[in-house]
């Protein structure tokens, strides 16, 4: 039986892994993708992680993984199918193996939210995209819409201006949620046109009449906007499918914090870290902080219960 199993290999899980390995806990981290890093992998440039003025997302992820492995963390690239967290012995079943552990850290993160409007699924990969850094080069001298107003949306809008002729940044409120430094960059960029108080209603990217219908919530007006592509960055939803019946979640599906100063979930010995946890701000540095704290708490739990 392991001391600790960490579920998820993003910054929260890898940071927990670094700390757990240094505590000499008998630990494995289970990550379903071939590369650790989670959402960081899809980030073009990270500019707000201390120690790096600018670093590519996949480079940062690689360094975190190398650091964890350097201290002896074992990473299993397997997909967990089922978990049983409630007993003193917690069980993780993957497609290949069954692992047992005294404590667990849930660091499964979140995934991009979809608009769920007509045309979104139909034109996914044919003009609808969730990755600006992947697909921007397809829109050389074209016009695109970016939906959203948070850090990711504004960051991706700025990246898209390197290729496109014009970017409409469509946001449902009358101010952006993104960091001020990003907002200023967006306002100063002549290729970005802000469209406030508006939501996307329908996407139609059939040749010769490509457009998105938007609805202004203040004026109640509908408008047809000619665009070649639509990039969607409207936030994230929690990856809670594996444990939603066992772990207490908040109304949005994120793991509920039970106590101010603890990352322990409603189940003793099970901790949560990173984006999966209910919080005001989801950032790499915070996920890493959570990971450290969760590993510390798991270590304390093991000492107390041995």
């Amino acid at each position, binding site marked *: 039986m392991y001391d600790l199993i960490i579920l998820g290999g993003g910054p929260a899980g890898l940071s927990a892994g670094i700390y757990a390995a240094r505590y000499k806990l008998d630990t494995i981290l289970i990550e379903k*993708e*071939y*590369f650790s890093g989670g959402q960081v*992998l*899809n980030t073009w440039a990270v500019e707000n992680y201390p120690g790096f003025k600018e670093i590519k*997302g*996949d480079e940062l992820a690689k360094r975190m993984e190398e650091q964890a492995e350097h201290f002896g963390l074992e990473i299993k690239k397997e997909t967990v199918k089922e978990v049983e967290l409630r007993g003193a012995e917690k069980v993780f079943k993957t497609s290949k193996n069954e692992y047992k552990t005294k404590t667990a850290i849930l660091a499964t993160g979140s995934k991009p939210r979809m608009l769920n409007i007509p045309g979104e699924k139909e034109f*996914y*990969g*044919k*003009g*609808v*995209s969730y*990755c600006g*850094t*992947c*697909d921007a*080069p*397809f829109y050389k001298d074209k016009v695109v819409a970016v939906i959203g107003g948070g850090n990711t949306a504004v960051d991706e809008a700025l990246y898209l201006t390197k290729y496109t002729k014009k970017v409409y940044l469509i946001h449902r409120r009358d101010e952006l949620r993104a960091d001020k430094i990003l907002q200023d960059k967006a306002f100063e960029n002549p290729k970005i046109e802000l469209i406030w108080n508006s939501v996307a209603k329908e996407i139609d990217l059939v040749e010769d009449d490509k457009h998105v219908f938007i609805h202004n919530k203040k004026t109640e007006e509908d408008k047809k906007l000619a665009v070649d*592509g639509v990039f969607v960055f409207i936030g994230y939803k929690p990856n809670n499918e594996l444990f939603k019946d066992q772990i207490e979640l908040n109304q949005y599906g994120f793991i509920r914090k039970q106590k101010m100063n603890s990352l322990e979930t409603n189940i003793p010995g099970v901790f949560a870290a990173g984006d999966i946890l209910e919080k005001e701000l989801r950032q790499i540095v915070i996920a890493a902080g959570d990971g450290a704290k969760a590993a510390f708490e798991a270590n304390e739990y093991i000492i107390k219960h041995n």
Partner: protein
Amino acid sequence: MAFQLTEDNFDETINSGKTVLVDFWAEWCAPCKMLNPTIQELEDEMDSEKVTIAKCDIQNQQALATKYGIMSIPSILIFKEGEVKEQIIGVVPKQDIKEKLKPYID
């Protein structure tokens, strides 16, 4: 390493009589890198007499990307007798790709 397609060998390959899976990718695309090992495993597991697993670097082969309407990567096209039969977009599990390939192999 999967077979690399260019404008020079693309048509010849998709008309070879075999089923052909083409993974459109680029160096700057992180999800493409995540899909890479899956493509490698498919190549190892599939019968090479029946199916060709190939890759197309869209940075050097923009004309091919345009021709097949690729607007998002990673994107997989499955060809049979020179025609596009299926398109799979994004990082998907190996099993899903196998399911899509199945009708064109037996």
